[in-house]
């Protein structure tokens, strides 16, 4: 066990847990932040995505030992923002949510993309979402939703 301090959704947080604990488990078990899902557990599906220093990463591949001193935003933290509300409206409007398991990761992927590229092309949106799997929508609605968010959220990113 070791104490690791980092910023979690804007607040300085210290967790006492093994350094080799997956950060996904730290969030879900220690912090009760269950918006992050475990899909594949090996970095292929993106259901566990979080923002680490403002960029999407897979929390299932991230040991607690790598988070020391870093800035973490989960879907629960991102939910408090105007950007989230814009992406949410777009996902609802375009029918980009079906079973919902991939949705938190998709929203994190969209935010990570738009933060670095506020006006992505369709191709760039697909690349931005390429690490996130969805077995329901067939992806086109999600791509359309991200596009809608860029238009309606002009100036937010």
């Amino acid at each position, binding site marked *: 066990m*070791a104490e*690791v301090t980092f910023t979690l959704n804007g607040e300085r947080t210290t967790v006492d847990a*093994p*350094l*080799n*604990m*997956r950060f996904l*488990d730290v969030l*879900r*078990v220690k912090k009760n932040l269950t918006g992050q899902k*475990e899909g594949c*557990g*090996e*970095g*292929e599906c*993106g259901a566990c*995505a979080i923002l*680490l220093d403002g*960029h*999407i*990463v*897979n929390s*299932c*591949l*991230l*040991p607690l*030992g*790598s*988070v*020391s*001193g*870093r800035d973490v935003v989960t879907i629960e933290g991102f939910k408090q923002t105007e950007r989230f509300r814009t992406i949410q409206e777009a996902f609802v409007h375009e029918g980009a949510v079906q079973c919902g398991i991939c949705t938190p990761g998709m929203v994190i*992927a969209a935010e*990570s*993309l738009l933060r670095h590229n506020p006006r992505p092309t369709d191709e760039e949106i697909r*690349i*931005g979402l*390429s*690490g*996130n799997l969805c077995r329901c929508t067939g992806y086109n609605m999600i791509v359309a939703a991200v596009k809608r968010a860029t238009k309606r959220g002009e100036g937010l990113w």
Partner: protein
Amino acid sequence: MVTHHIAKDYQDALEKLSEGTYRILAGGTDLMVRNRRLSETPVPFASDVLYIHNLDELRYVSEEKGHLAIGALTSYEDLLHDERVPTVLRDCLRILASPAIRKMGTLAGNIGNASPAGDSLVVLRLLDAQCVLESKDSTRTIPYKEVVTGPGKTVIGKREIIKEIRLPEASFDKTVFWKVGGRKADAISKVAFGGAVKFSDENVADFRLSLGAVAPKTLRDEDVERGVKGKTKTEMKDSAEEIVAAYAPLVRPISDQRSNAAYRKEVALNMIRQFITSL
């Protein structure tokens, strides 16, 4: 009992490594998958683990005399968006893994992991990359081609860390990076290919091919390349089949869960042919 330690700074990392029992965990994208067991239980490791993700002093790209220096923890994603990085490396990184994994993955991690299918290794071999290996008591700079010796095997000592990757300055008229995988993102290559060529007037001044996932380590053969240099462009194209034939015995892939040896070999040789005839 395995010890876990977060490096406080680079010197602390070298100190810990000098004990000779630590395995370095940088991005974790290989080690966390390979060692994973059950959900909600810590990932077991066979040796002590040194966590170095927070060593920001190893995140840099700088133009030095004769080479581009890349700090060992610079992520693929950061390299992808850095225009000082050679085009062929960025072409490789653009189709490597996914944005999330590219943010954690590093060239140094790919070298340390030493997978025969490591995509970035194909480019490091193509560009004659050098590796700076450091320990508490020594620093050595050696060519990448001497670092990886086989699947999962390197000459990196237990007390050493990859500190920096160096890409020698080079200019080419055309470079390509191609890969064949199960899907566009997050695919470990069935075959990966890097090619680079430079012409002086109509003559081939430089010619390099590098292939991944077709041999125990990245395949490049300077003897075959030497035979192509000096030819005119037309002569080179006319001898495409001879060049392909020269590579045929060197392409020795295996069958595994991703592909089979016969397919890999045919695709690899087709890529060589395609590169030559497209010039």
